[in-house]
């Protein structure tokens, strides 16, 4: 039983990162209609910025995080204002542009910081030791890592529901035209959504090195990104809590599949990844708006 709890907990940790990425994706998608494929690159930018501030400029962790968050917010706004806004509502072009941005941003990190992982890690002050409850012995580090995305996203949901800005965001995601009619500055809301989306990505990027205990590198977010997409699609791209739930669910699901699949099956090419991609395809074909999204009836 302890094993199952452990599998779920580790899945929560990974799933939390997926949820952060998925939430940022969904927020941007709802408010500006763009699937931001560059979300992973933004996460890496966040990780490198924080790392650089701490290790190359001797800034303490808290101010480094604050500066990184502010920087990411500005970057997100910048991307929306300079690039995405000019494309109007052309969905397809937006997809391609964000792909281009993904390449440019990741390449940029490599050019500035080099591609080899730096020798000093990006580490967070996580507690050591175990948390014991009866039969279960769980790592405190993992518990904290699992809890952080819950706290962050919880704050996001509360903000969306109970603040004026949040209400404006929800209005715009339901209907931009309607929002404009009631006097909501839609353009500014879009900027804010991109900014917050970028911050969410950065949060994921900063958690990844601690979750995977591996050094940072420009492509470090890539393995997480596809699962985050799948989670967002599964949960529903037009439901923020749904997308986040999809992220968490997928993290746990991946671990369960990995744990219960016999090794023989993996050698046929059916590994955890194959299952995930097949799942993505299946969900998109059967119910594109995901489990929690509102079913859009588009008769073709």
């Amino acid at each position, binding site marked *: 039983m302890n094993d199952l709890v452990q599998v779920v907990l580790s899945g929560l940790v990974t799933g939390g990162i997926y949820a952060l990425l998925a939430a940022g994706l969904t927020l941007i998608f709802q408010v500006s209609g763009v699937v931001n494929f560059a979300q992973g690159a933004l996460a890496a930018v966040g990780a490198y910025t924080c790392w650089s501030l701490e290790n190359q400029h001797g800034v303490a962790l808290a101010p480094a995080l604050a500066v990184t968050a502010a920087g990411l917010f500005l970057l997100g706004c910048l991307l929306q204002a300079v690039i995405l806004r000019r494309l109007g509502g052309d969905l397809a072009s937006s997809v391609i542009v964000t792909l281009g941005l993904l390449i440019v941003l990741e390449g940029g990190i490599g050019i500035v910081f080099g591609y080899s992982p730096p020798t000093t890690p990006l580490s967070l002050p996580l507690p050591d030791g175990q948390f014991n409850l009866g039969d279960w012995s769980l790592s405190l580090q993992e518990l904290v890592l699992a809890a952080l995305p819950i706290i962050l996203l919880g704050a996001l949901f509360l903000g969306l529901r109970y603040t004026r800005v949040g209400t404006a965001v929800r209005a715009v995601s339901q209907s931009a035209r309607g929002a404009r009619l009631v006097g909501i500055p839609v353009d500014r809301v879009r900027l804010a959504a991109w900014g917050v989306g970028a911050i969410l990505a950065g949060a994921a990027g900063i958690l990844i090195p601690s979750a995977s205990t591996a050094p940072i590198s420009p492509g470090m977010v890539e393995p997480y990104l596809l699962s985050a997409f799948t989670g967002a699609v599964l949960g529903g*791209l037009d439901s923020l809590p749904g997308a986040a739930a999809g992220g968490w669910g997928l993290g746990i699901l991946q671990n369960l599949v990995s744990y219960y699949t016999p090794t023989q099956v993996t050698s046929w090419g059916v590994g955890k990844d194959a299952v995930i991609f097949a799942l993505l395809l299946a969900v998109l074909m059967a119910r594109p708006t995901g489990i929690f999204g509102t079913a859009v009836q588009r008769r073709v």
Partner: protein
Amino acid sequence: MNPSPNSLALARLGVWRPAAVAAAVAALACLPLISTTSFAVGFLDPAGTYAILALGLNLLIGGTGQFSLGHAGFFAIGAFTAGILSSNDAWPFWLAIPAAGVIAGLFGVALGLPTLRLIGPYFSMATLGFGLLVAEILGTASWAGGRTGITVNYPQAGSYTFDELSFFWVILGAAIITYFLVWNLRHGATGRAFVALRESDFAARACGVHLAGYRVLAFVISAVLAGIAGALFANWNGFLDASNSVTSSTFGLPASVAFVAMVVVGGLDSTFGSILGAVFISAVQYWLQDRPELAETLYGACIVAVLLWARGGLAGLPALTRAAWGNLPGRVHAGDAHG
């Protein structure tokens, strides 16, 4: 289809067109005679191969407006089919390559039918998932060479063995045939149906255009051409390995992005633009091969630049520069309708 300024120029060419085409083809055919093997492997062979893929992909993207992010999957299917048939079963290349196209086409049907109802980003993501799934399976399964890969011997026709240089003639021939097939398709009734779909599927159906049929057709043709391109790749590259599938620049997401870049940068509305786009991206990759990450960054930037400022891509440059020129004060252009 609104006649673009470029096709108006075409109409004016009249009798010169076949001569110009023949001259261009002859010039290209001379290239293997004066190039090095390295230039063939690094630029000529890929440019020709990807031109075929881009022509097909442009039918889908430029023609019907559906952005596929998984065409590296069909490319891989074609490559591995040809590779396995050639190395395991000793099929000659001129059988293996069409067979690869057929297999890829079957997968195109398998994927195209269920994704009929998907629009915009959902379609893109479904194709993305497909591409990654294919690469993942081909990278780990032992019948696909597992992590060792598949080595393909030089293609032979009778007693003549092609090498990387002479195989360019095969690629060139295939590309020319493909170009004319696709061009006729785009400019015929089918092509008009595609464009009608892109502009407004509702209106198209009202006019009797069978939406589902044409969508799947575009998808399958693009899959077949991608498969043939993959099979050609297997023959001149000589080695197939799909491990590191997600980040692989041959079969993974970067490859699919590069393919889309070729179509977009070349010009979405232009058949010839696909060739320009493939040549351009291949040139960038070849020129910056010491710094592949710079190459990727560069054409990522190109995608962004084209979508922002030069929608017609490379093929639209002449019209774009003429329009810009025409906007200078003091110039009057009668008959410059949309520019």
